[in-house]
């Protein structure tokens, strides 16, 4: 333990020196990957520059004062009692106002530039995706009429408009490397535009406390080249339940028998009160955070979801037979539209 802590000191110092590359790529906002994130990053640097200037002025005066004006032992001479100084008071009123005006301008222009109306008719040229926050997963409804859960695919280099809603409590949609966050609020419709410069997998998080598993409400934004994206949309639209079922017949039946389909839609089938599983086999994580390749974890999830994500709404299935469980896992893994070994 102790050794570990001391090991960190040089690491921390180095990280501070290299503060341009703090944190994990495609997560940290300090390495912006889209125009919105870049604008935010630039203006953050602007404000840090102004504020560093202010801090330096204060610190210089402070250290001058505490070293220069210490009382020596036995010095009982009373210092001069001054009331104040009007010229100085005006100076330190006017200079901050000037500094603030420098910040007012990007604040106001940025606020208006970032504002997006949540009206699809205003964004006919852009990809328009409805995002609904649930405890504790994300639903993405595409204009083309299909639904994805947990992972949202977008074309790289294009503006994508996200319409933000929530089903139960307030959530907040945040992809740090791509831009700012806007809240998902029940009864309110907000919107946010993001644009990923390059194809890649960007990590997203829920930023508003939404219950015990708030910390586990992660998602992914997967940006693809336009042609790949188009192909993906085609595939999602073309998912045929019969064909999929043929790959894992037993699993398909177990899935139906255990009423999984009453919450988890696949393709056009079933209810969508839980995350749609149409492309489950392409997923990068289980439940947004866990290792997707771990069969045992997936089985534990089906048997007792509460143990992995406290407070979520999926009922436990303690009585499901091992045989059924194996079959369902195999079936879920077969639900692919891109193939698990795709590169991003």
């Amino acid at each position, binding site marked *: 333990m102790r050794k570990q802590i001391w090991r960190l000191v040089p690491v921390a110092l180095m990280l501070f020196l290299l503060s341009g590359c703090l944190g994990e790529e495609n997560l940290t906002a300090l390495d912006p990957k889209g125009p919105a994130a870049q604008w935010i990053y630039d203006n953050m640097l602007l404000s840090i520059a102004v504020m560093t200037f202010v801090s330096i002025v204060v610190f210089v005066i402070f250290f001058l004062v505490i070293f220069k004006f210490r009382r020596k032992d036995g010095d009982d001479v009373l210092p001069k009692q001054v009331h104040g100084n009007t010229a100085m008071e005006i100076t330190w009123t006017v200079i901050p106002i000037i500094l603030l005006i420098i910040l007012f301008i990007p604040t106001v222009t940025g606020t208006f530039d970032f504002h997006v109306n949540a009206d699809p008719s205003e964004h006919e040229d852009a990809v328009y995706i409805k995002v609904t926050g649930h405890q504790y997963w994300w639903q993405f409804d595409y204009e083309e009429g299909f639904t994805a859960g947990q992972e949202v695919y977008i074309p790289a280099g294009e503006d994508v408009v996200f319409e933000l809603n929530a089903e139960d409590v307030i959530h907040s949609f945040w992809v740090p490397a791509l831009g700012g966050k806007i809240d998902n609020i029940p*009864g309110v419709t907000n919107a946010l535009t993001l644009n990923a410069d390059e194809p890649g997998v960007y990590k997203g998080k829920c930023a508003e406390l939404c219950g015990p598993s708030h910390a586990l409400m992660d998602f992914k934004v997967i940006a693809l080249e336009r042609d790949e994206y188009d192909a993906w949309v085609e595939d999602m639209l073309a998912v045929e339940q019969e064909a999929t079922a043929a790959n894992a017949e037993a699993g398909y039946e177990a899935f139906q028998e255990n009423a999984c389909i009453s919450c988890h839609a696949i393709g056009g089938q079933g209810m969508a009160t839980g995350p749609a599983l149409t492309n489950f086999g392409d997923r990068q994580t289980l439940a947004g955070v866990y290792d997707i390749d771990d069969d045992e974890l997936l089985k534990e999830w089906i048997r007792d979801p509460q143990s992995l994500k406290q407070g979520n709404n999926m009922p436990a299935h303690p009585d499901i037979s091992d045989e059924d469980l194996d079959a369902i896992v195999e079936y879920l893994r077969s639900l692919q539209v891109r193939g698990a070994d795709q590169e991003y």
Partner: protein
Amino acid sequence: MASYKKEKSVIWDWLTTVDHKKLGIMYLIAGTLFFVKAGLMAVFMRIQLMFPENTFLSGQTFNEFITMHGTIMLFLAATPLLFGFMNYFIPLQIGARDVAFPFVNALGFWIFMSGGLLLSLSWFFGGGPDAGWTAYVPLSLNENQLGLDFYVLGLQVSGIGTLISAINFLVTIINMRAPGMTMMRLPLFVWTSFVTSTLILFAFTPLAAGLALLMLERIFDAQFFNPTAGGNVVIWQHIFWIFGHPEVYILVLPAFGIISEVIPAFSRKRLFGYTAMVFATMIIAFLGFMVWAHHMFTVGIGPVANSIFAIATMTIAVPTGIKIFNWLFTMWGGKITFNTSMLFASSFVPTFVLGGVTGVMLAMAPVDYLYHDTYFVVAHFHYIIVGGIVFALFAGLFYWYPKMFNHKLNEKMGKWFFVLFTIGFHLTFFIQHFLGLMGMPRRVYTYLGGQGLDDFNLISTVGTFFMSAAVILLVINIIYSAFKGERVIGINDPWDARTLEWATPTPVPEYNFAQTPQIRSLDPLFYEKVHGDGTMKPAEPVGDIHMPNGSILPLIISIGLFFGGFGLIMLEMDNPIVSPWIVLAVGAVLTFGSMALRSINDDHGYHIPKSVVQADLKKWGGGK
């Protein structure tokens, strides 16, 4: 009229006291206990976040801890600790014998306590509230979480206590000043307390209204916040932050006041730019009310509202900057003594600036889309609340301790305490700015490994261990000093200070001033040291002093309110042991019965006879 000095047991004396000094000490003790409780929760939370995917606390427990940590620290620790100093020192600093309404003062304390205990009881009924200290709806409407009922009723009750105490301070400062103590001669601590009390008056009322709505919705199934029934989720956030933002200033303005007392005293200079300080305080308070929506930039209230609130928020930097530079130039040219109190007060200035500059950064609405609800915000407000308010509380504690407890705190331990606490504080919170930017949302009970968040979280947790060690050292210091600390009995003015509280004898007699002093200047005691013989000139001859009688009724009224609140919560319980309506009735009878008793019973207080006052004067010196 009752005779002077009825003999009472010590416990009965403290339960019935209406003396502002005893109530001040009671506030300090209560605040300290809650401070330790909420601090321990913070340590547990940091231990949970020490390593990725740690399993020390569950998500549910963690959420209960964040909620209670925030709620307790703001309502039940910081507020009473400041109220403790305000209660003790406002009357002394303005040359008054007590507050305007001593009975109401005691009532305020006991109601605050009963609300605090009601809130704390939630642990015994299925866990604390878990929706964050802001209790955003719809999360806070969770029917299964009884803790939230305790949150609503506990805060409602304790808020009444805070509100009536604030009204009492307002009347005291307006009406009870000694002759010559004009408003522009008030010590800055009194000024800031006055402005804070005004803020409480206007901020706790919307909070009470909001909590009432939440109570109606939770307990009586109203639909104010249910969008499917025509309600509005965002309205709660407006109501909450109309209270919640001024709340920050409610806490930080008296902290400014303490700093403005300590820095001149130990720099041996008068406060630089007194008038500017007073008006800056008022401007900050005014703007504090105008900026609540900066907590809601990501809610989608529109670009016009966001711009206006962003600019209004940044503007607060101007009066705050005036204060910062005035403090620096108070020290400039002075003869500074660096004891523990001054160490905290002087280092408050740059620390608070670090919190302030991130405040301006947060105010840039479109950039806030990044910071909002991340650890950047956590770092920012802990720089304000710990680096500001807590530093000031420690400065005030070491400064005023001799006047309150008749001995000093140990300086050597005090300085070690300062060093440990400061290192721990920066270690814990500075690094959290980066955590936020690196993608760590706030209020998360865990984070995955391999996201680049591990090292900084570990460092942050190590920082809390330093702060914990520092606080333990402070407790040791307090116990040690009680036995071995430097006595100041008979020494009225151990710091060679400037304001009126140091003109009273130590220990302070129950009537504070044998003769109301005549105030001739700002910093009246210093004025007399330079222009007079070093003692205050009396404004009245020695005579009988009228004092209020103690009363048990404030305690009983607050017990009644406790039962009232608890009865309402019982309406939500599945199988209450007794009918909630009986508990409610008992509460109502106790509260309203005591009020009626208070109304019909004429209590004229008692007089301390002239002879006793004269004897005291002979003992402590002075008196014309």
